[in-house]
């Protein structure tokens, strides 16, 4: 595979995306809103609603399943501090696995299906760019912006949360923690790549953008499973769990890419053109 050819496909697509605000706005605005509103709600609402008499209620299973050193740390905190700490550090962490998937879904669904709809695909397929170079280029153009949005959202979330919780935790900065860094820079990219790879394959197989996007929504389900696993306390995203999941997803990324190259058929794509 010639990386410069994949980079060329990336540059061309990126140039087009940059000029399309209908694509850019939802990718940037939704994650940024989440990363601004969540820490604000997290730190302010419990204080307003329950003062210092917070009730852990539904968080008990999650708290009980946290690693022992964390539980020791929590023992010294008030219930309000525990609630904010658990929600900020554990409860919302897996949501940051959904951000790259959300951000990439529009671009990845459009990758081949959009070119079919706009009738530009034949010229692209006629170039001496190989199947793997085309697929990789199309994956890159979804991956890089979605990871940028995820990292920026993480930075915004961290800053806002630290500023708002600084006083409550007596000057202690809770974020970024090792778990979060591993999650954002280790697990999120590998999860995003697998999801983008599958969406790009779907996009090459279906006729139009909407069809591709509707099918790709299914890919969110396994990630939602991880989110609910953490909320229920069944699966805690500690360093070891993140490392194992990241390794599994790296393997899955390779498998998805290989399958994608095997399934990529220029003839099938051209037969879908009206």
């Amino acid at each position, binding site marked *: 595979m010639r990386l410069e050819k994949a980079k060329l496909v990336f540059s061309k697509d990126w140039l087009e995306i940059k000029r399309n605000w209908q694509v850019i706005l939802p990718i940037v605005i939704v994650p940024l809103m989440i990363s601004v509103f969540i820490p604000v709600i997290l730190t302010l609402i419990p204080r307003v609603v329950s003062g210092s008499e917070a009730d852990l209620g539904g968080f008990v299973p999650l708290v009980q399943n946290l690693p022992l050193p964390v539980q020791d740390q929590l023992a010294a905190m008030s219930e309000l501090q525990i609630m904010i700490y658990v929600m900020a550090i554990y409860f919302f962490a897996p949501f940051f696995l959904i951000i790259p998937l959300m951000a990439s879904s529009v671009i990845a669904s459009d990758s081949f299906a959009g070119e079919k709809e706009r009738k530009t*695909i034949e010229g692209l397929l006629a170039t001496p760019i190989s199947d793997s170079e085309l697929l990789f280029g199309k994956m890159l153009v979804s991956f890089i912006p979605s990871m940028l949005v995820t990292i920026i959202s993480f930075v915004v979330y961290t800053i806002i949360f630290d500023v708002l919780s600084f006083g409550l935790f007596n000057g202690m900065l809770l974020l970024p923690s090792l778990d979060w860094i591993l999650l954002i820079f280790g697990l999120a990219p590998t999860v995003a790549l697998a999801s983008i790879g599958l969406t790009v394959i779907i996009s090459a197989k279906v006729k139009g953008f909407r069809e591709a996007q509707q099918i790709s929504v299914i890919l969110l389900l396994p990630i939602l499973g991880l989110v609910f696993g953490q909320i229920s306390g069944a699966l805690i995203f500690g360093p070891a769990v993140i490392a194992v999941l990241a390794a599994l997803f790296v393997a899955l990324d390779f498998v998805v890419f290989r399958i994608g190259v095997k399934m990529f058929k220029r003839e099938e794509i*051209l037969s879908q053109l009206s």
Partner: protein
Amino acid sequence: MPIIEVENLTKKFGSYVAVNHLNFSVDEGEVFGLLGPNGAGKTTTVRMLAGLISSSEGSARVKGYVINSDSLKVRETVGILTENPSLYEKLTAYENMDFFAQAYGLTEPTKKNQRIKEMLEFFGLWERRNDKVGTFSKGMKQKLAIARALVHKPSVIFLDEPTSGLDPESSKEVRDLIAQLSHQEKSTILLCTHHLEDAEKLCSRVMIINKGTSVIVGTPDGLRNKISGTPTVEVTLETVNSKLVEAVKNVSEVKQVTIDEESCTLTATIQNIQLGTPKIVKSLVEAGGLILGVKVVRPSLEEAYLKLIKEEQK
């Protein structure tokens, strides 16, 4: 020497046979036309020859590369104008050219920029190079798409319906540019069209295909003569009389003579236009005829084509 060699090329989509055992070859520098109605299999043939889809049976070589096994090399070698212009409307004309130049391996910046400029100037688009393609007219898009197909100086060019959907003025402009280009670039061109004017004005040889099968191959002149009979010479005289008719009948090249007394026209069917026409004029003048006009009437390629397609459909 053939640069495109096609042997029993066949394409099936399930049970439907889109291209059925085509055989032809195109020499280096030749402009070869694939003529046929919509759905005849022209685009499928071009897609196979351009390494976009594989053949079901038979084989073809483009500049020595086998289309099925060396498809990447074939794609590198050829330039193609696809049925749709396949241009990115949110990119400028220059950005489109730049992307395709690099995709075809033209990466050295000075050479690339020089070639892009040369092509955009040739097609009269240099002044609009920084405008988005979405703002272009259909004719401009078609010219840009042809420029894009030529950006890497391919030795073989496939043009699929280059004047399709264009108004007569733009069609003529595109046709003239292709003619000029085939001389300037000295490339081999395979032109796919159902516009007979394109084939007539640009091609040295044409192949008429219908329902995926080759109907006939030859030069446009040869096809006209072969299908619609021999040409005729129409002479308009001041008066027509039997003496003049006899004089023309005595010319060795003349096969048949008819007259229309009302319009004072004498029509002669002849074997050889170049030899026969001056002899007819000479015989008429010598017999005392006063000639008002001479017209060589040849059956058009369109008549020949329609006749053939009609026969095929029967």
